[in-house]
């Protein structure tokens, strides 16, 4: 075990002397956390709406006012016909059209009030989808208020957003981004590490020494494990200082999970490094996996909205569990006992990836 001491000394000296390292460890998380939550914001504001009002009544005017007063919509144009309105959509001036049929007001007295038509531009699917959902909700509410007949009045739907009261997208994104940046930096750095020694020729020198394989892997793993904690601390600090976001649950549980997760993810990086011959090869391999991990982590698309086969694939994605745990602790205040499943699975990943790293590292070629 004394050998490990010398190997660790070497690794730490090398990392501390690498002028590129502090930039990656401090600058990348800061930039990601400051920019990404704003850029990756799916909350819709300023949806451009075109109005075609065939009714021109008090009631139709009230409906339009109600729609515009919500703050989600911005009036882009008022057209006389649907054909005219659709031209605005085609030229990207309007995102969504609201056509109020003639006789809208008078139909209110009848049992079956006429419903306005919504046409959304689906080129920007999110904007169109969210826009028409908002709009439907507003109209539904308005009709319910106006309808004299008790029967047609739908049951009042009160949506309460649990755990993220003001439905702030940032509160939702930031914990996941911390998980992502720890994975990206930790994975990429560890993937490049061993293969760099191969390129420089020092790996061969190590291979002719009697250093046991497991000890060598351990000496590579330890520094990245610590870097993971540094990244996490920077992330937690920035999300508190910039977004006022503090975990609702115990911060120590986050650190504990990161401890296990970093062993898993560094093992993944080292496994790639051990089977690669050049840094370029290692980089591409690592990024192929990291991008898939990130996209399928539930950070951008909820896992539950993925097709069934994709949901099955995410079971093998360690990042999915980390994003999950971060959100559960940050937003829900989950306890250690709530996260037993995630802990168990990431432990399996930690063992599995490090076994791969050990198998991939061959001191003697066949």
């Amino acid at each position: 075990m004394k050998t490990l001491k010398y190997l660790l000394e070497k690794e730490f000296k090398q990392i501390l002397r690498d002028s590129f390292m502090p930039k990656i460890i401090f600058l990348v998380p800061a930039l990601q956390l400051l920019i990404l939550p704003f850029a990756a914001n799916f909350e819709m504001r300023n949806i451009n709406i075109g109005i075609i009002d065939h009714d021109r009544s008090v009631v139709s005017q009230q409906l339009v006012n109600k729609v515009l007063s919500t703050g989600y919509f911005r009036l882009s144009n008022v057209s006389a016909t649907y054909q005219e309105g659709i031209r605005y959509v085609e030229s990207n001036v309007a995102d969504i059209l609201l056509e109020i049929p003639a006789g809208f007001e008078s139909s209110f007295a009848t049992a079956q009030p006429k419903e306005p038509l919504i046409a959304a531009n689906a080129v920007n699917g999110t904007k169109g989808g969210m826009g028409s959902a908002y709009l439907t909700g507003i109209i539904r509410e308005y009709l319910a208020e106006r309808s004299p007949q008790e029967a047609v009045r739908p049951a009042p739907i009160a949506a309460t957003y649990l755990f993220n009261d003001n439905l702030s997208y940032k509160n939702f994104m930031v914990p996941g981004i911390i998980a992502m940046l720890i994975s990206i930096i930790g994975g990429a750095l560890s993937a490049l590490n061993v293969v760099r020694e191969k390129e420089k020729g020092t790996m061969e020198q190590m291979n002719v020494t009697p250093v046991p394989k497991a000890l060598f892997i351990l000496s590579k793993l330890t520094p990245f494990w610590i870097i993971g904690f540094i990244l996490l601390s920077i992330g937690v600090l920035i999300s508190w200082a910039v977004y006022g976001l503090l975990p609702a649950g115990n911060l120590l549980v986050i650190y504990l999970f990161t401890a296990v997760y970093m062993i898993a993810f560094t093992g993944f990086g080292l496994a790639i490094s051990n089977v690669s011959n050049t840094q370029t090869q290692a980089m591409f391999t690592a990024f192929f996996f990291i991008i898939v991990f990130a996209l399928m982590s539930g950070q951008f698309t909820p896992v539950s909205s993925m097709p069934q086969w994709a949901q099955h694939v995410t079971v093998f994605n360690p990042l999915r569990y980390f994003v999950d745990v971060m959100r559960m602790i940050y937003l829900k205040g989950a306890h250690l006992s709530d996260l037993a499943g995630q802990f168990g699975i990431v432990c399996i990943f930690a063992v599995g990836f490090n076994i791969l790293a050990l198998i991939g590292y061959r001191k003697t070629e066949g």
Partner: protein
Amino acid sequence: MNNVIETNQLTKRFGSFTAVNSISFSVGRGEIFGFLGANGAGKTTAMRMLCGLSVPTSGTARVAGFNVYNEQEKIKKSIGYMSQKFSLYADLRVWENIRLFGGIYGIHGKRLTEKTDELLDILDLRGERNTMVASLPLGWKQKLAFSVAIIHEPAIVFLDEPTGGVDPATRRQFWELIYQASARGITAFVTTHYMDEAEYCNRVSVMVDGKIEALDAPLALRQKYGAANMNEVFHGLARKAQRSDE
């Protein structure tokens, strides 16, 4: 004289290509053994098998008494190795490299400090103790790498073109280090392209196309081939090669 390396019909094939073709030889304790051959002749492959970096396809070999098939890690404890690529850590200081490899080979504490001082004295590198290895001149680096390779007093040190690109004066100093090690009983197994260095060896072998074409003391080889020096011996043998450059 007891042999520290013994091979019998040692062979390495990569697919249909036979890199090392049934070589048999032995090297005695403290001997300086020159392992010559043109590029692509199979020297490095043979050396890698002896160092436990590569498993032979067939044949047998024992290095420091250990089998190259299943006792590679024991072999690694008993040998030193210096490859043609410069193989110390360039981003570590001189003393840190000595400490690292000393530590790996089981030299600890006070002995490690003493060994470091002693080594720096021999190499006349006391003033460079804290220098980054990256900024040392090549000749100094190679001398340091050699000294580090034998820091644990191994039975054998394998040197793969150790003096490539080094100036003649420094090469001479380098060979003095080899002689000193040999006098302490460390066997030196050297590949080189410099024929003057071949003359310094106790015995040399010349590999051509994966086979050992000649093996004897330099003087005996010169007489056998009627050559004035090792250069002529080498050219006479290497001309037969069918393989192109690696």
